[in-house]
């Protein structure tokens, strides 16, 4: 190699990092980062929730946007929730019939199906399905608006983005989840009865009378209305993840994924608390 070539090669070497050492994150620093990140996330969520609440209860109210979101969350989730409910009904019916037959308790089948669907499976399954569809949709939509400065444009137009974007979506989720839970429950009971009737003759009237005998409103209304809490969780997490996004397309993807994962996780954790609450106060 010529002298000129050696000189050129020398020039291409990266600068010597005499004063720098390669930093390898330690377990302690990673743990510290996770710890502070955990509390920072909850703190930011708290601040966000307060901003949304303040904006949501002060006029002018965004009625048109709320109606649009009710359609988006409710009507457009209807087919998916109905289908999921129908599938759950068949699954519970088949499993319950098999298990009850083993213990000689086939007569308990209608009540088992009704209580399983309305008190547990219907609300949770509705929440998880809507978290996947609506949570991801809200998270991705708001994240996309954030990275393209559309939310900044809304704010620059003297419109409160917490009121227009977040409060309407969260309220729509709170209002629509109980109705969607009723849809899921109805479809599950219908298909559950149908699956049973295909094997052993059982009229729908007999099924309903037997399933709901001895039941009171306290047995069914609280589990249905707990889905309003699910709606709050789904809407709040999705709006929070979307509106704080950064990082372009990757950030939008992360927001959508986190909206579903965190929404579903908190929904299930909330169910543990709500079940205890319902059992303590309504039974």
């Amino acid at each position, binding site marked *: 190699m010529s002298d000129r070539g050696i000189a050129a090669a020398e020039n291409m070497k990266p600068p010597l990092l005499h004063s720098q050492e390669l930093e390898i994150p330690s377990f302690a620093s990673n743990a510290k980062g996770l710890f502070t990140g955990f509390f920072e996330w909850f703190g930011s969520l708290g601040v966000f929730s307060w*901003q949304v609440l303040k*904006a949501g209860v*002060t006029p*002018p109210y965004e009625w048109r946007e709320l109606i649009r979101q009710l359609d988006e969350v409710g009507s457009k989730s209807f087919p998916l929730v109905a289908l999921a409910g129908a599938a759950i009904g068949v699954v519970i019916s088949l499993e319950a019939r098999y298990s009850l037959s083993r213990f000689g308790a086939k007569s308990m089948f209608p009540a088992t199906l009704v209580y399983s669907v309305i008190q547990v499976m219907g609300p949770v399954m509705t929440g998880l399905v809507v978290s996947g569809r609506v949570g991801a949709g809200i998270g991705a939509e708001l994240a*996309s*608006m954030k990275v*393209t*400065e*559309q939310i*900044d*444009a809304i*704010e*620059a*137009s*003297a*419109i*409160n983005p*917490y009121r227009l974007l977040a409060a309407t979506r969260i309220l729509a989720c709170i209002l629509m989840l109980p109705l969607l839970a009723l849809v899921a429950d109805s479809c599950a009971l219908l298909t559950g009865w149908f699956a049973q009737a295909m094997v052993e003759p059982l009229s729908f009237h007999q099924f309903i009378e037997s399933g709901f005998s001895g039941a009171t409103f306290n047995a069914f209304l609280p589990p249905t209305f707990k889905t309003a809490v699910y709606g709050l969780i789904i809407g709040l997490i999705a709006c929070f993840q979307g509106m704080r996004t950064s990082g372009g397309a990757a950030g939008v993807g992360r927001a959508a994924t986190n909206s579903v994962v965190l929404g579903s996780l908190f929904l299930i954790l909330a169910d543990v608390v709500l079940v205890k609450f319902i059992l303590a106060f309504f039974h």
Partner: protein
Amino acid sequence: MATAYENAVKQEDVERRGRVPFVAVQNLHKTFGRHKVLDGISLHVSCGETLAVLGRSGTGKSVLLRLIIGIEKPDAGSVCIHGQNIAGLALDRMGEIRKKMGFLFQHAALYDSLTVAENVAFPLEHHRRDIAKSERADRVRQLLAEVGMDGALNKMPSDISGGMQKRVGLARALALEPEILLLDEPTAGLDPISSGEIDELILTLQRERQMASIVVTHDLHSARANASRLALLNEGNVVVEGTFDELQQSDIGFVKDFLKQS
């Protein structure tokens, strides 16, 4: 020490221009993480005046505009609009002040789920519910005609070019008849012909409406075309401020280099 606002209402200024500042920024500081973007910047703009803020990429020009409209909060300093410091105002209080301001974002920031007409109508639908729907629609058509986009009412933002999006963004910024217009790199990413058309459009609108305008740009030719005063930023502060001729006469090395390269 007198504030920028107080300095600007000196008798000779009022006599010379007959105007008082609409926007006065005093000793503004802003840091993102460890990166100090603005380091005590001060400037002012009066009614009917256009100030072009120039500088290299990453010197905080866009951040300055975002601080003036209130999307970002300063770490220190004041931003006065009509003499009122907006630095600590709550979101809803800021709304009343923002109605007097129009902002054109660098990439237009059009709402991609709305048509061109719906984008321009958006501020009117929220703030001018007192006027009839038909009158709002007429206003939208008039605004789009002013920017040469009256043939694209029902198109979506994704169906039009970057230059057209800027025009629609400009129409939306003018919807509430603002007194202050903030333009973030209005010709960035455009070809020379489209840039010239946007410059011409901005100049015509400023002449007709007599707004106080701040144009952030790295394009010296565009700044010369649109602005009555130029401010050159470097390392978070104003290096020199004045007319283009005054900048050319500056002995500061950075200014000479900037003008030479542009």
